[in-house]
Structures are given as C-alpha cells and as structure tokens.
C-alpha cells in the first residue's frame, strides 16, 4: 500500500465515517413497573403442569401395579404399592381446582409439603432459583426401611456442618436397613427421629416456610417421598471467628473479650457473666428477605415487663428487606430517628451488656453483628465506660467529669472562639487579644472561614483514617494533621490559634467514648459555629437552650433521655459522678425495675463482722 492509497483511505474514513461495529455498551433499562396482577394464564399453566405430573406419576404407579399383579405374590411389593397409592390419593386431594388455585396464588414459602417428592423438589427449585443457585444441595437417598423410602436431604453449602450431616444424618439413615418397620405406619417417622437421628435439635414441620427458615440458618431438612412432613435437624456450622479483644472499647482493667458475628457465641458470652436461670433470651426474626435472627436478652425478675413487650412490639413491627447490622436495627427501633443523638448504646463488650442487664435494661443481639444494642439508656450512659467500676470511685468520677468537659469543649470551644473574636473581644485579656490579633494579621480569611476549613480538613483526615486499613490509618491521620497544620500556618491560610483550637477540639472529641454520640456532637458543633459567626454569644445561647430542650424531649425506648437529671429521679450515684461500689444500692429509678434494690444498705458485711482472731488472742 503506497502513501497515496494510505492517505486516500484515511481521508475516506474521515469523510465517510461509520461508527465502530462493537456491541453497544450495557445500559440498565428502566424497569417497567405495573400493578397488574399476574396473568391468569400463568397460574392455569402451572396448574396444568401439576396435573400432568400427577398423571405421569399415576400412570407409573398403574404400570407398576400391573407388573406386580402379573408376577407371583410378593407381600413387600404390594405393601409398597399400597403406600404409593395412598400418597397419590393424598396428592389428588390437594389437586382439586380450588385448592390448587389457592396454593398457586400463595408464595411457595407458604405452601404445605406435598406427598410427592417431585412436587417438593419443584417447589424448592422455585424457592431457591435452582439450578442457577449453586448453594442449595439436594442429596437424594433411599432409606432402607420396609418398604424402602425415597428421601432427600436439603441443606445450604457453607453454613452447614458437613461432618454432622455425614455422621449424624446420612450414616444412621443408611444403616436403617436392619429396621423392619415401615416409615409410613403411625408414628413411624417420630420413631425414626428418636432412634436413628442423634442430632441435638430435631423436629417435624409441615410447610416450606419452616423448611426455608431452618435451612437458611444452616439446618438440614429431610423430605420423604409419600409423606407430607419434613424433618429438620440442627446442623449449623458456618465459619466464624472466635471472641477477640475489643477494638473500639478497649479497657485497661476490664474484660478483654468482645462479641463476634455469631449470635449464639454472643449470647453464650453474656451468659458466662450472668450464670442465672433468670437470664432470658427470646429469639425473633427481622427482615423479610434477610430473616436475621435477633436475640432479646433480659433478666426476668428485674426488668420492667413493659420494656420487653415494647421492644418486641417494635422488633416485630419492622417490615424491611434486610437487616444486616445491629446499627441498622437500632435506627429502625429509635424513638426519634430524625435526631442524630444515639438513643441506644451500641457495645462490643459482653461485660457492659451484663452490667446493663443487671441494672434492668435489655440487650438486643443481631446475628452477624459483633455489637449489642442496649436500651433504654440515658445521655449520661453514653459517657460511661466499662472500667468505671474497676477504678476507685474518686478516679472513676474524675474520669467521667473529664469526659463531660471534653464533650462541652467539643461542642462549644470553636463557637466560643468565633463569638468572642467577632463580637465580644472585651471578654479576653488585652495581652491575649493582642497576641491573637498579631497571629491573625497575615491571614487573609475571616475567622469563620479559617475554622470551617480546618474543621473540613480534620473531618477528611478522620474519615480517611478510618477507611485506610490497619495501622497506616492512624499514622496518616497524625502525620497528615501535623503536616497540614504546619503547612497551613506557614502559608498564612490559618492562624496558629485556629490550629490550637481545632486540635484541642479534636482531642476532646476522642474523650467521648461512644462513636455515635461523638458524631452527633460534631454535627451540633458545626451548627453552633454557624450560630456564633452570625449572632455571637446570643446565637450560642439560643443553640444551647434548643439543644438542651431537644435532649430533654427525647426518649430511649420510652424512658426520658436526660434522666436522672430531667426528669429528676432517685439518684443512684451512677450518672454524672460515680459513687463507691458499696454505695450503689439502687438500680436506676427511671427504668422502674421490678426490684429497685441492687444490694443491701450494708453490702460490705465483712466490715460489721469480727475478724478471725478471737477477743483475748494475743498471737
């Protein structure tokens, strides 16, 4: 190809442009939503298909019967045929047009188990989207009973324990050959479960809803051809990590174990700290698609029963697709979800949950989440930490006051700085105001822009620090803060006093033990900064009173959020300050527990008893 031809072709391509012949890129089409009911044709088609399958099964049975009749008399074969015919009769009853139409109009999950193994298999295929879905395993086997019975084991790969399935289900069922009894006789199935299946939890169910909810949890279902019941055997065995050290709520003197993602491990961890028959664990399911298991734990003789009823009412009243985390559930159960302040305590520590239960609160644990929700709580509960009671009461109280001051500094310091530097300079000593003035002289921005930009940078660092994996996150946070601060001061973008204020505020925010509260306080701080920049201390005053009234109006599971301060309730030396452990005589009054007394007035009885030495002993 010479240069002339090349140029001609290039020119031709430009003039006579044709789009490339690649396949068009994928664009998700907008779904056409219509409220029409499913076409009746589909349901009648399914009905005809079911009838056809029944006809095939009937034809097979007739053929088998003919063959058996032509042959010499065999009692076992005749017995098996009798049972098959009985099962066919049962199936026919369900195939009446009215019942079939009703059954088809229902979700497959609500359908009853059929006597036909084929029908059951088809229902399972429909429910679990087989064969596309590779998670569900259907293992066919023949139980060598008299007569032999076709059965199918159904379980989900990955969340069931294969060893248990092999040793506690398949092996005993296959050894059933020695058994001469029929499974179809009265109580035959119950006997099979009682004598041959060594699983620790075994039960019989009648609907696919029961089967799906059990196998979704990791259990195994056994379906029997000719029987309209299924056996469920507990074979849960998904992989999970064991209890680890707490990562967010570390403590120096407290327990060093934290919740995991497995619900039963978590309930067990709480029970190891409260070994009493009084500790009740109620199981509920939340999420129409996720079917997340939740455990509501409480001490029955202490908690106000109305709290349990209300918590269960709220849990059962949640209609949502999926609840995958405890935090989601917490938000769905809150009294005032519009406000950012946490209305329940989220903790990863079993000892905190145990302490809360002993006070008359309740805990909700969610399967798959290493956090427990504790409710009801007060604002002051969020400023407590696990080891408060491991320290002498003076030290514990000091730490609590420090946290409260940290919270106040976090909310008010930048706002006060803005208000004073804009409107009330006379509040500062002359030397200080001159120093601040000199530091701000070279900065071209107003104080509000300085504060806002530093806040923004700090928030970015904080968010980035959380997202960056491992130790690198905190390192980048510290290095970033130092470099950014120094560079911003050197570039005259912000004054050193702004860096100091933002640094102190940031430090104070880390004194708040609860992550959600810390977030809410930060949001409040931004509002206060805006108010201070607009109206000085008058704006701040308006903000303060509004936020206090809002907090006073809030409830946590129906209990006032600012109790025992507002409304004033009996003070148990465990709100802002902490009394000595021996003086913690009463449970929180605002919870109205059944038993208000935690310990007798003289709980240290050894102080009133004589020591081992007898009077007069000289040695």
């Amino acid at each position: 190809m010479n240069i002339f031809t090349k140029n001609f072709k290039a020119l031709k391509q430009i003039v006579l442009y044709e789009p490339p012949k690649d396949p068009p890129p994928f664009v998700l089409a907008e779904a056409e939503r219509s409220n029409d009911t499913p076409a009746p044709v589909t349901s009648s088609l399914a009905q005809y298909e079911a009838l056809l399958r029944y006809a095939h099964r009937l034809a097979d049975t007739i053929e088998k019967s003919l063959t058996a009749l032509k042959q010499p008399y065999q009692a076992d074969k005749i017995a098996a045929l009798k049972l098959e015919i009985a099962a066919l009769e049962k199936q026919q009853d369900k195939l009446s047009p009215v019942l079939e139409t009703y059954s088809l109009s229902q979700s497959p999950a609500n359908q009853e188990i059929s006597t036909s193994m084929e029908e059951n298999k088809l229902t399972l295929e429909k429910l679990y989207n087989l064969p596309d879905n590779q998670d569900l395993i259907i293992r066919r086997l023949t139980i060598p009973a008299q007569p032999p019975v076709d059965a199918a084991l159904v379980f989900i790969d990955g969340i069931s324990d294969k060893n248990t399935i092999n040793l506690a289900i398949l092996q005993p069922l296959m050894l059933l050959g020695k058994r001469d009894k029929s499974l179809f006789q009265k109580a035959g199935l119950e006997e099979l479960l009682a004598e041959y299946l060594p699983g620790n939890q075994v039960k019989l169910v009648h609907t696919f809803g029961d089967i799906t909810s059990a196998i979704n949890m990791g259990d195994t279902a056994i379906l029997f051809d000719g029987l309209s019941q299924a056996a469920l055997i507990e074979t849960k065995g998904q992989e999970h990590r064991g209890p680890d050290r707490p990562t967010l709520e570390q403590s120096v003197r407290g327990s060093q174990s934290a919740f995991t993602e497995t619900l039963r491990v978590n309930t067990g961890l709480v029970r190891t700290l409260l070994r009493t028959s009084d500790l009740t664990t109620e199981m509920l399911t939340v999420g129409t698609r996720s079917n997340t298991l939740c455990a509501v734990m409480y001490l029955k003789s202490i908690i106000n029963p109305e709290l349990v009823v209300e918590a269960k009412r709220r849990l059962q009243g949640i209609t949502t697709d999926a609840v995958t985390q405890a935090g989601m559930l917490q938000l769905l159960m809150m009294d005032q979800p519009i406000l950012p302040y946490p209305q329940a305590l989220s903790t990863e520590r079993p000892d905190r949950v145990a302490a809360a239960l002993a006070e008359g609160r309740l805990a909700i644990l969610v399967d798959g989440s290493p956090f427990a929700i504790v409710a009801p709580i007060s604002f002051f509960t969020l400023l407590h930490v696990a080891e408060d009671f491991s320290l002498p009461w003076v030290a514990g109280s000091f730490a609590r006051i420090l946290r409260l001051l940290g919270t106040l500094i976090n909310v008010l310091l930048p706002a006060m700085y803005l208000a004073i530097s804009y409107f009330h300079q006379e509040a500062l000593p002359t030397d200080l105001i001159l120093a601040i003035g000199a530091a701000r002289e070279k900065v071209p921005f107003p104080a509000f822009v300085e504060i806002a930009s530093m806040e923004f940078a700090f928030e970015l660092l904080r968010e980035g620090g959380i997202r960056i994996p491992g130790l690198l996150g905190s390192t980048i946070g510290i290095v970033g803060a130092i470099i950014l601060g120094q560079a911003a001061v050197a570039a005259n973008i912000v004054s050193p006093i702004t860096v100091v204020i933002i640094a102190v505020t940031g430090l104070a925010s880390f004194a708040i033990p609860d992550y959600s509260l810390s977030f809410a306080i930060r949001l409040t701080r931004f509002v206060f900064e805006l108010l201070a920049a607009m109206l000085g201390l008058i704006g701040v005053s308006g903000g303060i009173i509004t936020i206090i009234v809002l907090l006073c109006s809030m409830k946590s599971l129906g209990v006032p959020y600012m109790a025992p301060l507002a409304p004033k309730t009996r003070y148990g030396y465990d709100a802002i300050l902490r009394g000595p452990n021996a003086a913690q005589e009463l449970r929180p009054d605002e919870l109205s527990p059944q038993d208000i007394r935690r310990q007798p007035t003289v709980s240290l009885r050894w102080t009133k008893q004589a020591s081992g030495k007898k009077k007069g002993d000289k040695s």
Partner: protein
Amino acid sequence: MKAQPGNMGIAEGMSLVFITTSSTIFLAAWSLAIDRTTTASWMMPLINTCTGLLTLCLLLYVLSVTSTDLYDACQLLVGTTATRLIVLYYIGIYFLDATLLLRQFAENTLLTALPELPFEIAIGWYTIIAVILSYIGIEATLRAGYIIMPLIILASFTVLTMLLPQYEILYLAPWRGPGLDKVLASGVMSSGINIGILIPAFLASSFQNTKTVKYSVLYALGLSCLVKTATLAAFIAAFGTGSAREKVLPFYELSRLVYINRYIQRIESLVIIVWAVAGILNITVLVYAGIYLLARLFNLPTLKPLILPVLLLISALAMIPEEITSVITLHTKLHFGLYNIGTMLIPFALFVMALIHAFKQKNSKKQPSCQ
C-alpha cells in the same frame, strides 16, 4: 384536651416559677425600684415573696376545695362568664408580659452584645427560639429549665462573690431609705412581678398533685427571692443608690465591675449566655401559658397551630414602641398595677368564693333532705 401536657413534678414546677419570677434581675425593673425606695430596695423582693406565699396559700385552698385546676375551679366558683373574663385577663397579661420581655431582651442584646444588629433581627431570633421550644413542648422546656436553673444561680452568685471587694455595706442600711412604710407599700405593690406563680395552678392537672404545685412554688419562690435579694443588695452595695438608679441593667453592670486580676475581669460577655437563656425560657413559658389558656377558653383540641401565629403577633407588637424607655416604664407600671389584680385580687376573690362554696357544701351535708 389533647394539648394537656404530661406528668410534671416538683422539679418542672420549680423551674417554671423560678424562670418567670427571677429573670427580672437581668432587666431594668429593679433600677426603677431603687428610684422609689433607695437603699431599702433589697427588701422589696422579700416583701413581694411574702405576698406571693400568701397568694399560694389562697390558691392551694381554692384547688383543695375544688379538687381541680384553676380554670375549672373558676368555672365551679364564679360561673362560665366570669371565668372567661378572668382567663381573658390572664391571657392578656401573659402575652403582654411576653411582648414586653421580648422587646427588653432584644434591646439588651443590642446594648450589651451586638450593637450593630438591627433590633428586628434580635426580636426575630428570640421569636424563632421561642417557637421551636413551644413546639417541642412545655414539659421538655421546663426540664431544660431545671438543668439551667442551678447554672443561673451559680453564675449569679459567682459574679456577686467576685465583687466582694467592691461592696460598701453601709449603702444597704434601711434607715437611709424613704422609711419602712413606703418600702412595705412598694414591696406589696411590686407583687405583680410574681405573676408566674399562677401558671402551676392553671396547669395543676398536669402536675402529679396539689402537693407538687405547693412545693414547687414554695421552693422556687424561695430560691428566686434569694437570688433577687442578693443581686439587688449587691447592686446597691456596689454602686450606691445614686449611681444604681441610673444603670439600666443591674446584673450586666455588676458583671462589668468584676476585676480580680488582668485575666479575670469584665466577664459581662460570658454572662450574656445566662441572661439570654433565662430570657428565652421566660418568654416561652409565658407564651405557652397564654396559648394553653386560649386553647382551654375556646375548647380547642390542640394548641400547636396557635404557637406560630401568636408568636408572630407578639414579635410584631414588640416592635411597635419607638424607644425602650417607654417599654421599661410601661412594664414597671404593669408590675406595680395591673398585674397585682392577677396576683392578689383574683386569687383573693376566688378564695372567698371557695370559702362560701365549702360552707354551702358543709351545710348541705348537715341538712337532711326533705324527702
């Protein structure tokens, strides 16, 4: 009635009475009182607290005889028409007081904190906060008031303590005043300042029982009296009557006088938060009480829709006076005049009617029926 607030206890009642009776220490009312009774002015809060306690006794008797709140008690004792007139009077004075307070606190804001702010914006700001608090509800507002109350007392006494070196105790000697008779008369006439003590009686059904009303008013009046007397005494002792009668804002002027060292001086900016919060709470409580009575009077199912229009009207009214001195003068005249009908005359009249009612009931029980 759906608008009925929830269960309130002594703490909420204390906060209600304390906020409505003590926030005058942040206003000019006491400067004008010094003008009347000079060095003995510090006695006036003591005297009007005594009349307040007398009013409380009368009201408690009325409530115990009728076993209901003050509104229903009025209906039982004086009939529907008179009740409507009485309630209209109280609605009027609560709204009027809220209007005058709104204007004075807005003006104080301009005087002490934000001199360049248009006063309409200051009024607007207080109105917005009052609307928000009223919407949240009286229960939460009073609970917040109970949290704020110790801070107000603490801040007041901190300022007064810091001024210890500035006091001239002889300024307080009553014999340098106009005479005890005048002080007593002025003290009794200033009872209108305590108009807020009737609000718990109107909201009695929201309190746990009459005992709650009794103790909340009793404790709050005591605390309020202590704060007012101490502040007024400190004001006179620090400035002397000649200078004090010229100062518009007693508490603000006292905090301006603080000088401990170079770093603790002129703390007036920091106490802005205290008086601004007290002012907002006082306006909110008065407006809420007025709206509550309005809803009762017209038998309305709820009071929330009234909050915004009423507060807008109040803020518009507060903007009408051209200058602040007329507002301060009017407020003082009302304290010494019109408000006394509400704090003394009406409770006394109701007490008399309750006595007659009780007497009639006693007689009817004694006399067996003719049949």
